[in-house]
């Protein structure tokens, strides 16, 4: 778990590539800990700090995690099954990682209009008071555009 994530530069759509919608997709997001906001910035200048607000020019969007608050069962209770029998119709484990989709169309349009070809993504995990939390965890990040 980390408080902050700084990505390698993501390739942005070419100027001629028209799109109606752009989504950032976070895979295998963790929600086993506290409730938090993942505040997302794209193409921010170096030196971006965790107190950057939603009025920051590089702010792109947020997703919110309603956290489980940690493990409370006995040993093994919060272990996510590694394999699943195809005939196992029980509900999935409560802590199985999720997928978060954040629509960032305006932010991507802005960067492309400014001639940017690549941009890094910064994500901060914050509590409701704006304090950083070590709550951020995901396996992969993709930018998807839809024509």
């Amino acid at each position: 778990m980390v408080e902050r994530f700084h990505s390698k530069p993501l390739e942005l759509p070419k100027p001629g590539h028209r799109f109606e919608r752009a989504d950032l997709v976070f895979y295998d997001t963790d929600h086993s800990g506290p409730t938090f906001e993942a505040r997302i910035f794209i193409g921010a200048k170096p030196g971006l700090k965790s107190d950057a607000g939603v009025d920051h020019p590089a702010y792109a969007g947020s997703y919110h995690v309603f956290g489980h608050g940690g493990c409370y069962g006995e040993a093994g209770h919060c272990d996510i099954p590694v394999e699943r029998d195809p005939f196992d119709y029980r509900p999935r484990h409560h802590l199985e990682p999720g997928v978060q989709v954040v629509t960032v169309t305006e932010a991507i349009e802005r960067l492309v209009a400014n001639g940017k070809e690549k941009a890094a993504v910064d994500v901060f995990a914050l509590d409701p008071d704006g304090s950083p939390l070590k709550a951020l965890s995901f396996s992969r990040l993709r930018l998807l555009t839809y024509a």
Partner: protein
Amino acid sequence: MSTAAPAAAATASQVALRHRRSARRLTQGQLADLREAVTRAQAIGDDRGYQYWAGIHGLPEPMYCQHEESPYFLPWHRAYLYFFEKQLQDRVPGVTLPWWDWTKDHDQGIPPAYARATADGKKNPLASSPIQRRGRRDPKETKTWRHPAGPNSPWLPSPRQLDRVIRGNRDFITFQVQLEDIHNGIHGWVGGTMGDLRVSAYDPVFWAHHCMIDRAWYLWQLEHPGAGATLPADYLDSALPPFRMTVRQTLDVTRLGYDYAAGTAAVPGTSGG
């Protein structure tokens, strides 16, 4: 002609529909009934009582709630509210769950009906609730508490943000995921007990929050008629444990005996019908 009929097609059987109202616009009598129903439910220690119903969501185990992009998030919580409201109606006939419109009155925050510590000289049962021993995440947390963030918090959505989610998504699953994100933010904004999935349902404002979520789904259904018809049959026929109800049975609120529209007015159209 103005009647108390729902927004859906009016039939004689719908006369008995009950209306869920804004938590900020309850009459004194409606609010008194709600408080009385919650107080009486809190006094019952068996499976009719408040503690039993709050515990279905999270602790004590098993934890039945559906979150984290579950396709059952909205149907499950609609069933949950329905059965909980029925318990309240057994205590005080006619009482309904109110909704907290968290897109408005950000300066006020949590509606006064739920925020005031006392009401009529007594402890306000909507301000806090005990947490049963087996439902506690911490043995010392014997009752619910809140720690709301400020009125300018980005966790509170604007009317435009909610409107965009409702109008901008014809696909049910996409709509549900985006609405759940707003829902998550409100839980976090209220903070304290509400900010933890395991115990949030013990806080009385949980029900007003989820009533607003349910209302947003209702508004989406009005905005996109027929959109739910494309959902697969095996999804629609899925059960919503522990409730004896399927997804399909949650789709029409008028069949569940309630509506969010408090009145309609109608005139004949071009066909005179």
